């Protein structure tokens, strides 16, 4: 088997490939001075890493590297998710005018480096590993946001991002150190074992609160969401795509790792019910604020940012329900979200490329000017709103039904109210998505409007997302089994 070749390094191989890629990119640019070679080379690296991951996953491989990293069905699936995200981002970066004028060597190096950080988080089994992974991602993303030069919005966004990111890091370090103080370990399983016999202490509660707040920034949960619209708007669109679909998923993985392992897997004796409620409240507020504020947005990137906030709220249902079904649904929704939100950002990036603005009103009559792009955008938005038979509907259905009922116990879940808030929110969200569809299909284009042509790489990325949005809606089993395996491996 392929993993035998690498000995004890085997669980780390997907990351190792990615790190080598990240280090080679600047040198490659220095030698060749070719702006076109780098995206292609990055794609090769990502593909190699993804194939490696897929082969390991298919073979049912599990292994640990020290006590820091574990490769299993869960982390393997998450690796694939992050690889998909960065694949899409790199694919469109190659021809996007927003990114081709940057320092390309550094740009691709940072993208791959940030992805490595996400992959560290996905495989981590220790708080220190999680912390380092998150910081690698954060620091790379600050630079990625700031790299869009000549745009004051990017500079402003980057400064905000750094300061707020720094604060959230401080909070998480505080939480981790408190937890270490209470339990005497940073290994998640050891912490769980220690907590199983521990007594209630306020230090533990404070540790939980600071960690929820600190990592709450990464997923832009309300009230820690302020930075997200500014950053997504200010950054180059491929970077926005990377942050909205990748970085946010990493935050969710952190939450799954810390809270699901501490409270469910390790069966902590106290505080579980309270923490579940905290998450339920945050989830309800996050989805509601995200959706309601999205209604008034006039900039499409800001609107998508708020819609991302709402989607994170849906996935946080997993943290309230805390069972295997919910995790299956949450993982499934994370995947479909990559394709539908990623697809929407790809369309936005493609249209910025041809000189169309970022305001929703710039999309007037798009259906006449670019029928295929408008059609794809319509499907992405309807999928986000949860219209069947698209992927967003199926994944929401699986996710929400977990909040209604747990077949393992056969009792109605106490989170039914949360599911109903989520369903109501889907209805609200339809309003602002429909507004964009109406602008594209019903409003008249300007008189001098011409047909729009977009680069082939954009078209390829868009069609890829479109295919998955339709296929995962009609044939969810394609990924659902992987999600169920991952969830089973987790618990």
């Amino acid at each position, binding site marked *: 088997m392929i993993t035998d070749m690498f000995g004890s390094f085997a669980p780390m191989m997907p990351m190792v490939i990615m790190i080598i890629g990240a280090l080679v990119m600047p040198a490659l640019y220095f030698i060749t001075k070719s702006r076109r070679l780098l995206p292609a080379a990055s794609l090769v690296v990502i593909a190699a890493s993804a194939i490696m991951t897929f082969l390991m996953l298919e073979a049912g491989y599990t292994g640990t590297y020290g006590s820091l990293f574990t490769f299993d069905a869960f982390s393997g699936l998450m690796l694939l998710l992050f690889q998909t995200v960065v694949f899409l981002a790199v694919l469109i970066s190659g021809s996007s005018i927003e990114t081709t004028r940057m320092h390309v060597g550094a740009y691709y190096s940072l993208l791959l480096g940030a992805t490595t950080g996400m992959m560290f988080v996905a495989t981590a089994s220790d708080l220190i590993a999680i912390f380092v992974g998150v910081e690698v991602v954060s620091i790379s993303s600050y630079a990625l946001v700031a790299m869009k030069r000549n745009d004051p919005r990017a500079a*402003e966004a980057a*400064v*905000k991002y750094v*300061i*707020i990111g720094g*604060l*959230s890091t401080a909070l998480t370090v505080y939480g981790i150190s408190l937890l270490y103080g209470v339990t005497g370990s940073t290994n998640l399983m050891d912490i769980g074992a220690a907590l199983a016999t521990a007594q*209630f202490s306020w230090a533990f*509660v*404070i540790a939980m*609160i*600071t960690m*929820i*707040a600190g990592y709450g*920034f990464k997923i832009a949960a309300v*009230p*820690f969401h*302020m930075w997200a619209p500014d950053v997504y708007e200010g950054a180059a669109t491929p970077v926005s795509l990377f942050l909205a679909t990748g970085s946010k998923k990493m935050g969710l993985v952190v939450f799954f790792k810390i809270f699901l392992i501490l409270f469910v897997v390790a069966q902590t004796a106290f*505080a579980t*019910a*309270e923490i579940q*409620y*905290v998450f339920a*409240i*945050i989830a309800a507020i996050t989805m509601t*604020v995200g959706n*309601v*504020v999205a*209604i*008034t947005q006039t900039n499409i990137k800001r609107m998508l940012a708020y819609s991302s906030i709402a989607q994170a709220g849906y996935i946080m249902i997993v943290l309230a329900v805390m069972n*295997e079904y919910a995790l*299956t*649904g949450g993982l499934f929704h994370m995947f479909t979200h990559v394709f539908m939100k990623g697809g929407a950002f790809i369309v936005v990036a493609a249209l910025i490329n041809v000189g169309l603005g970022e305001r929703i009103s710039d999309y007037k009559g798009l259906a006449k000017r670019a029928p295929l792009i408008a059609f794809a955008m319509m499907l992405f938005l309807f999928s986000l709103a949860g*219209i*069947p038979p698209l992927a967003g509907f199926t994944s929401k259905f*699986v996710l*929400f*039904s977990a909040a*209604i*009922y747990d*077949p*393992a116990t056969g009792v*109605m879940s106490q989170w039914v109210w949360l599911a*109903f808030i989520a*369903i*109501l929110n*889907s*209805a609200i969200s*339809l*309003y602002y998505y*429909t507004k964009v569809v*109406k602008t594209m*299909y*019903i409003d008249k284009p300007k008189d001098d409007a011409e047909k729009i042509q977009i680069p082939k790489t954009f078209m390829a990325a868009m069609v890829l997302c479109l295919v998955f949005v339709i296929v995962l809606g009609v044939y969810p*089993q394609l990924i*659902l089994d992987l*999600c*169920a395996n991952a*969830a*089973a491996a987790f618990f």
Partner: protein
Amino acid sequence: MFIEFSWLIPLIPLLCFVIIGFFGTKMHEGGGYLAIAGAAVSTLIAVLVSYEYWTSAAFASGVPYVASMEWFAFTSTTGSFVMNVGVYIDSLACMMMLFSSFISLLIFIYSVGYMSHEGNKKRRYYAEVSLFLSGMLGLVVSSNFLEMFIFWEIMGLCSYLLIGFWSFKHPEGDAASINAASAAKKAFLVTRLGDVSLMGGLFVLLYAFQSLDYTVLFDVNNIAAVDSNMIALAMLLVFGGVIGKSAQFPLHDWLPDAMAGPTTVSALIHAATMVKAGVYLTARAFPLFVQVEYVMLFVAVIGGVTAFIAATMALNNMNIKKVLAFSTLSQLGYMILGLGAGGYVMAIGIKHGDPALIAAGAAGYVAACLHMMNHAFFKALLFLGSGSVIHAVGTEDMRQMGGLAKHMPITSKTMLIGSLSIAGFPLLSGFWSKDLILESVMDAFTEPVGWVFVILWTLAVITALMTAFYMFRMWYMTFHGEEGHAAKHCHGESPRTMTLPLMILSVFAAASGLLILFGFGDTVCIGFDGTKFIVGNGHGHDAMYYLEHIFTNVYTYVTILLALLGIYVAYLMYNKKTLNPGRFNKEGQSFIYRLFANRWWFPEFYDQLSLKLGYGTACGVDFIDKQIIDGTVNGLSSSVVGGGEVLSRAQTGNLHSYAGVVVGGTIILAVIAVALFYFMGGI
């Protein structure tokens, strides 16, 4: 041998949608002939499948034909949910797919003439109507609620696209284009409101039964194992979906606005698809609905109120299509009323184990299904007829018509048949079904809270009078009297592709009700023998029962007289002109007149509600998000943490507030968590 292929019925129009969508511009009539061929093949298969089912042993023993396979499952180590996809064929499904596909076929044929001036937009039109038909047929043959819901939503999406069809360039100018766009959005969003409720209902059902398959949900043993309050909750939520889709009070307001689409689309929505889906769902889920009698009471009240309110709105409207739209609302109200009243009686019968009551309740189900079919025929006829008129004179305003009978003899005569039928003229189809619905409401008089049904019956009888009046007001204003402004430019009778469907439909519109004398009541019925629900054979009543019931009841003659009175008053007012309508409404100034003309002020109410409440809330939250939280937290942060101050001096002022949120948010979180620990006894 054919029934195994019933999944082809929705699939063929879907295939047509894909082909026309891609290659329509290269085809004759933008793919119109392919759409017709698709509908024809679907109709043919529907006929063969129905024939096979109705001659099969399954039908004879009252069980449906079911075939399904696993679609997706989400499993864990402890259990699993399995979602299936398949077909569920019983008498109700057969009836629905027969008339839906057949009427759609006629409407598609008619479209070739009606849409002939649309040029390269035909591709979009034929692609979308094919998808629409596919949605309806898929909904009808679905074997579980999730599958049904998917087709239900596809139809909602298509209606959005089709109602907004003329939003780019309406033949009547820019104002009408904007109107079409907003009507489409309204239809989509209002029905979605119902869909949210329906989806909630499905989740409750999924929880209660751990499955959404009809075979599981309609099994008496499974039903008995579930708490009846849970079923009541689920069915009320499901009925919320029906209220949205079938445009019942209080979500009825989208349907009249949906007239902004092409008339053929209106015909499709009103007669064969869309709004019938809600009634179908109520009939389909009847075994669950009848578990709790007050749910059925609620259904009946909604139906009765809708029938009455909508009919009043039609009394003084001047737009020919709007009058028909209100009449659809009103007739849908009748169907829901029939199902509700029958279901109420049946629910009580099941509760007390009384076979006589169960049979009496089943009669309401039969009546509503019959009315649904009859209405499909005469409403398709009336809409296509009005389309023919609009095509010829170029306006929808009845005041500009008049005297068209001599220019358009076929349209005029076929529409007369449709009007007589819907008005309940004796022995025409509308008469039978409407009368049976009224009978079933009367059956509920002697049950608990019978007074509600007395009121509903009275409303329904008054509605019958109003129906006869407004239909003939429409017919006389359009085809008789002086020629109006637009009538002088009439092009004459419409082409053969348009009049032929009219003539075919008029035969059905006149005679489809007679099916009640030829076994309809035995075929499309529901029975309950204590151990299982039986849809179909042997548990309905025969023709003599209905004949006797109808003609020995003195109230039947009352309704006949009222219908004739309505027609006569319309004749006096709008043809002979000896009775001036202005006398009754102070020349359009009376409160009642304005109430009806403004649709009871529902549209304004909803506009205000959505503007003030919906958009207002959104702006408010946005404001709070930007200003108040930031502002409060600013103060908080500077007093709590000096670091916030230092940061703000070092960076932009805006950043200060952002950093403040970090602190403020954490504090809020801490307060929530501590409160939870305190109240939940975690400490």
